[in-house]
C-alpha cells in the first residue's frame, strides 16, 4: 500500500498534518480437544489508523477497507469529526525523537515451523494431562502465534517501523475430586519456538490443579494477604490508569496533585521499562512516534509523574514520554521491582493469612477512581509461615491506595504477564476476606 499517497490525499483535503499508523497482523490459532483439532484459525489483517489535524483539532479514524473510495470517505469522516470538537487542546503530529532505543530481541518467524509440529505440540500437551489423577478432562488446549508489523509515517517526515512476534500455548485442565471441580492452566509465552517446554507445562498444570482440589471457603475476617506474582501484576494492570496523564487531566485520578508525594511504603518501586529483558514485548516507540525510555513511576514510595501522550505532556508542560498506545495512554512494561526475599521468607512471619492465586471479575469489581476493589478470589491458607490447604469462593476487598501503604514485603519472583505488567509476590498486612461463615473449621 502506498501510505505516501494517503498522506498526499489528506493534505489535499485540507488536513494541516496527518499520520498513518498501519499494523499488519498475521496469526495462527490452534485448539485441540480430545486429540482432534477443535479450532484452527488463520488470519492476515492490516488495519490503519489515520490521525489528522483539521482547523487545529486532532482526531483519528481507523479502517480495514483499503480501497481508494473507502479511504477518501474515512478522511471526510475525520474532518467531520474534527469540526465537532470544541475543546481547545494541543493538537500535535510529531516530528520525531532525537534517537530511538535499539531492540535487541529478534523477531522469530513462527511460520517456518511445520503446522504438523504445532499440532503435535498441542496434542502432546493435552495428552500429558489427560488420564492423570483427578483429571476429568481438558477443556481446551491452545497454541497461538502472532506476528505484527507496524509502520508509522507522517507529514512531518517521520518514518518508523517495528515488528514483533510471539507464540504461546496452554491447556485448561478440569480436575474433579469428591464433587469438587476446579480448572487450572499454565500459559507458556515464548519469543522462540524452541523455548516451549511441554513436559514442564504439563507438570505445572497438574500441580496447580491438584493443589486447588478440596478447597473450602473461610469465615469472613480481616487477614494478612499475600498476592502471587501473577495476581498482583493483574491488580496493578487494572489500576494502571491512575498513572495516566489523561486521567489526571480529566480529574479521574486521585494521584492528580500527588506528584513527588509519598503514596506508598518507602520500599516500593514501580518502573515502566519498554525494553525490560524479562518482559514479552520490546517497544522502541509509541503510536505517536515518540521514543520510549525507562521511567520510574513510583520511587521509594514517592509518585514520580504521569505517563503521557503528546497532548497531555504539552498540557502538563512536560517532555512527552512515549505512552500513547491504541488511542489511549498506557504503560509499556510496567513492573514492581523485586527484592531479594524468597517466597518462603516472605510468608514465613505470617501466622494466619491467605495466599491469593486466583482473582475473577476484575472488569467489574474495581473502581479505579476511588481505588476500591472487591473481587472473587481463591488461593490457599497460610498457617504458621507455610502455605497449607486450598481456599475457594471468597471475596477479597480493599482499597488499592490504602494497600500501597500496607505492603509488608515484596518477593523476588518477578514475572511478567501477557498484559505487559510484571510483579513479584506481594505481602499486604490486612485485607477483608468475605466468605461462608458456616465454614469455620
Amino acid at each position: 500500500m502506498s501510505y505516501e499517497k494517503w498522506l498526499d490525499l489528506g493534505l489535499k483535503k485540507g488536513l494541516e498534518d496527518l499520520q498513518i499508523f498501519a499494523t499488519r497482523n498475521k496469526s495462527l490459532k490452534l485448539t485441540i480437544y480430545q486429540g482432534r483439532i477443535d479450532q484452527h484459525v488463520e488470519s492476515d489483517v492490516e488495519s490503519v489508523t489515520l490521525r489528522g489535524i483539521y482547523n487545529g483539532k486532532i482526531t483519528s479514524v481507523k479502517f480495514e477497507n483499503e480501497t481508494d473510495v473507502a479511504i477518501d470517505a474515512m478522511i471526510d469522516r475525520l474532518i467531520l469529526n474534527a469540526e465537532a470538537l470544541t475543546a481547545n487542546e494541543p493538537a500535535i503530529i510529531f516530528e520525531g525523537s532525537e534517537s530511538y532505543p535499539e531492540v535487541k530481541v529478534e523477531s522469530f518467524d513462527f511460520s517456518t515451523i511445520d503446522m504438523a509440529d504445532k499440532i503435535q505440540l498441542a496434542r502432546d500437551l493435552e495428552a500429558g494431562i489427560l488420564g492423570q489423577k483427578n483429571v476429568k478432562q481438558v477443556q481446551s488446549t491452545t497454541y497461538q502465534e502472532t506476528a505484527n508489523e507496524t509502520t508509522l509515517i507522517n507529514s512531518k517526515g517521520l518514518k518508523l517501523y517495528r515488528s514483533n512476534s510471539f507464540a504461546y500455548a496452554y491447556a485448561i485442565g478440569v480436575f474433579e475430586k469428591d464433587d469438587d471441580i476446579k480448572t487450572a492452566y499454565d500459559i507458556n509465552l515464548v519469543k522462540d519456538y524452541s523455548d516451549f517446554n511441554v513436559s514442564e507445562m504439563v507438570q505445572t498444570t497438574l500441580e496447580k490443579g491438584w493443589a486447588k482440589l478440596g478447597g473450602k471457603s473461610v469465615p469472613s475476617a480481616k487477614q494478612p494477604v499475600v498476592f502471587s506474582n501473577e495476581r498482583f501484576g493483574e491488580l496493578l494492570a487494572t489500576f494502571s490508569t491512575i498513572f495516566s496523564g489523561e486521567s489526571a487531566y480529566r480529574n479521574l485520578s486521585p494521584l492528580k496533585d500527588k506528584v513527588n508525594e509519598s503514596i506508598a511504603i518507602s520500599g516500593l518501586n514501580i518502573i515502566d521499562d519498554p525494553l525490560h529483558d524479562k518482559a514479552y514485548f520490546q517497544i522502541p516507540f509509541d503510536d505517536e512516534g515518540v521514543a520510549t525510555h525507562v521511567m520510574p513511576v513510583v520511587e521509594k514510595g514517592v509518585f514520580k509523574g504521569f505517563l503521557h501522550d503528546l497532548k497531555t505532556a504539552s498540557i502538563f508542560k512536560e517532555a512527552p514520554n512515549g505512552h500513547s498506545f491504541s488511542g489511549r495512554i498506557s504503560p509499556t512494561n510496567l513492573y514492581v521491582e523485586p527484592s531479594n526475599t524468597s517466597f518462603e521468607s516472605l510468608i514465613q512471619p505470617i501466622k494466619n493469612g491467605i495466599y491469593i492465586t486466583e482473582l475473577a471479575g476484575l472488569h467489574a469489581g474495581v473502581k479505579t477512581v476511588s481505588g476500591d476493589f472487591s473481587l472473587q478470589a481463591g488461593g490457599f491458607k497460610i498457617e504458621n509461615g507455610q502455605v497449607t490447604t486450598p481456599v475457594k469462593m471468597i471475596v477479597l476487598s480493599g482499597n488499592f491506595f490504602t494497600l500501597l501503604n500496607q505492603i509488608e514485603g515484596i518477593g523476588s519472583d518477578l514475572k511478567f504477564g501477557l498484559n505487559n505488567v510484571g510483579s513479584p509476590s506481594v505481602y499486604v498486612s490486612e485485607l477483608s476476606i468475605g466468605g461462608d461463615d458456616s465454614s469455620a473449621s
Partner: protein
Amino acid sequence: MLDKKVLERLLQEGVSQGADFCEIFFENTHSNMLRVTGQEVTDASSSNVYGAGVRLIQGNDEVYGYTNQVDEESIEKIVKNLQASFEGPAYNAKPLGTSNPYDPQVAIPMANKTTKEKAEKLLPLTQIMAEYDERIVQSIAMLSDMKQDILVVNSEGVYQKDERHYARVILMAVAKDETSMQQAYEGPGRSMGFEIFEALDFNELALETAKSAITLLSAEDIESQVMPVVLHNGFGGVIFHEACGHPLEATAVAKGLSPFVDKVGEKIGSDVVTAYDNGTVDNAWGRLSYDDEGRPTQNNLLIEKGVLKGYLVDFRRGRMMNAKPTGSGRRQSYKFSPTSRMNSTYIAPGTDKVEDIIKDTKYGLFAKKMGGGSVQPATGEFNFAVQEGYMIEDGKLTRPVRGATLIGHGKDILFKIDRVADNLEFGQGMCGSISGSIPVDVGQPTIRVQSMTVGGAGGQK
C-alpha cells in the same frame, strides 16, 4: 461484494476436498464514538471493520480463516489454504438462494446526522450531572453508534444479508469530598438510530447518575457476610446471565463443561424461576433479525417453573450435541468463528410487588444497581459487583453501602430464588466469550435470593 456466481464457485471449492460445509461471512461495520467531557466535545473518532471470514467443517471439525482483503483471489487463497486440513470426498454445494427480508429496526440512521448534531444531544446531559451537586467534579457523556452490514453464504444454499444499527449512551459522574472519590455509571443501549434520544429519558438518567455518585460518597463499605439479597430489576439480570446463561451455551454444554449437562427435563431451580433467551425483542440491544450463521433468531425457553427446557445452540455444536440450532450463532466480527451466544436473556416476571419483597425481608442487602460480573462455566462459580446498594433492616431500606461483590455457584443459585416481582426490565452490556464481545441484554424483575456470600471492605478490624 462478490457476485453470487463467484460465491457459489468458492463454496463449491470449499467442499471439494473432505469438508462437508463451507461458509463465508462478509462484514462492513462503521462505528463512531463521541465524548463530551464537562461542557466540551473532547473526542470524536470513527472506525471501520471490514473483511471476510471463511469456515470449513468436516463432521465436527472446523477450520477458520479471515482477511481484510475482500476480493475473489484473496478469499480463494484462504479456502485453498484451509482445505489442506481435510481429506475426503467432494460434496456438492447447493445453489445460493435469495436473502430473506430483514428488519434494520431504525427510524433515523445515525449516518444522517452530523457529529455536531449528535454532540448537541450529549451536552445538556453533562450539564445536568455537573449542576446536580457541587461535589460532582467530572461528568462525561458518550455516544457510541454502530452500523453493521453482513452477508452470510454457505454450501447449504443460505444467502442472508442483515443490517444492524446500534446506539448506546454512556453517562458517568464522578463525585469527590474530603475523604473519597466515587463514580457512578449508566449505559443504556438499543437497536436503534438517532431516535434513541426520543425513546429514552436521558435527562432523568443523568440526574440519577449524578445522584448515585453523591449517594456513594456517604455510603459505607459493606461488611462481608452471608445474607439474603434483593436484586433490583434490569441490570440485576446479570446474575442469571453469569450463573446460568453462559453454562447453558452449547460452547460449554457440548464439551460437558457445565453444571447443566444432561439436565433437560430436570429441576434446576425453584418453581418461581422461568427464563428465556430471546433474539427477537423489538429494538432490544441484543436483538438480531438473523444470527451470524444466517438463521432467523427466535425466542428460546430455557427454564420453565424451575425445570430446564433447553440450551442455546449454534450449527456446529448442534451437530456435536445432536440438537437443532436455536438462532444463537454469534460473533463480534469476521475475525471470529461463530458460537452459541445469548441475545436478550431474562427471568420472566412473577406476581410479587417490590415493596412487599423488601417489607418481608428482615435483614439483607438491596442491590439497586449492578456492575458487571463473570463466570467460569466448568466450575459454575460466578461473581458480580454491586454499584449501588442499601441495607435492608426490619423490612426497610436504611443506609447506603458500597463495594459489595456477590459470589455463588450456578447450580445452587436458582434454587435460592424465592421471590420474583412483576417489574421486568432489561439492562445492556457487552458480553465477552470465545467469539468476541457482543451486545446483549440481561433482564429480570426484582428478585430475592435467600442467601448469598457478600464481600466488602467494611466492618471492624
